[in-house]
């Protein structure tokens, strides 16, 4: 009997900068930034209300219901 390989891609429903998205949970913060072509040196990331140290972008993976904020500097007075 042939056994089929079940390749289930787990999706995570997240909120990124207020926008609802569905992403593969294989994304780390680093790959997420890459996907949106964001230079990690010019931004700051907040995950569920806590600031993420930039050294940990590679180590943190997106989970279901995560709320992520990516901010940068704009003109202001």
């Amino acid at each position, binding site marked *: 009997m042939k056994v089929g390989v079940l390749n289930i891609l787990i999706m995570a429903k997240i909120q990124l900068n207020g926008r609802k998205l569905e992403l593969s949970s294989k994304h780390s913060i680093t790959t997420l930034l890459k996907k949106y072509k*964001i230079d990690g040196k010019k*931004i*700051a990331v907040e995950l569920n209300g806590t600031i993420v140290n930039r050294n940990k972008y590679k180590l943190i993976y997106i989970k279901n219901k995560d709320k992520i*904020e990516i*901010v*940068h*500097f704009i*003109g*202001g*007075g």
Partner: protein
Amino acid sequence: MKKDIFKVGGLVLKSRLIVGTGKYKNFKETAEAVKASGASMVTVAVRRINILDKKKPLLTDFINPKIIKYLPNTAGCFNANESLRTLRLAREMGGWKMVKLEVLGDKKTLYPDMIETLKATKILVKEGFKVLVYCSDDPLLAKKLEHLGAAAIMPLASPIGSGQGIQNKINLSLIIKNAKVPVIVDAGIGTASDSTIAMELGCDGVLVNSAIAKAKKPVLMAESFKNAVISGRQSFLSGRMSKLFYADASSPLKGLI
């Protein structure tokens, strides 16, 4: 003569004019105006990145934070917690410890909520921030901010973006007289001469955004502000003449034909 140095929170700034980077047509114009103003520090805001627009230009591409010091602000924050969140993110972004705190209390006047401002100042100082604080022109509250460890006091001249100029010289003078930290007039400056007056009152610096960005020729206005602030400072250091009630002829009467 002793060199006139402008030092805020341990940092020496070349110019006593600090400029805001909001309200310009585009980043190119912002960068040109900043250059013309001679400012070595600019205020910036912290906002969400637009994730859908991948090609959107960044402020940092036009104004190099390694050359021009960024002073992150908390514009748009209406309580202490929102402003703390914003400034902690700013610090994470590039290690910015010198920040401009502004906690607003009213959407129409953008008047500062001083109770929340005092609360946030206390926490930020404890966390090691150098806090430049936008505040009302109340001399007692300004002193309280200083006691809490504010690096500079930034009283408003008139409401943010109103261009109404200096409305309460007496309060500003009282704040300046009492302060042991720099006093930087922030908000309400409408034209170059307003900044000269602020400097003549004895302010240590001036923060200007709208008056430059909303001028018909922002880059020229930026240069005008540069000169106006230098002029006001020199005038302050020179010590003005006393005012007389009657005339006093400038030409000698001796030898009159």
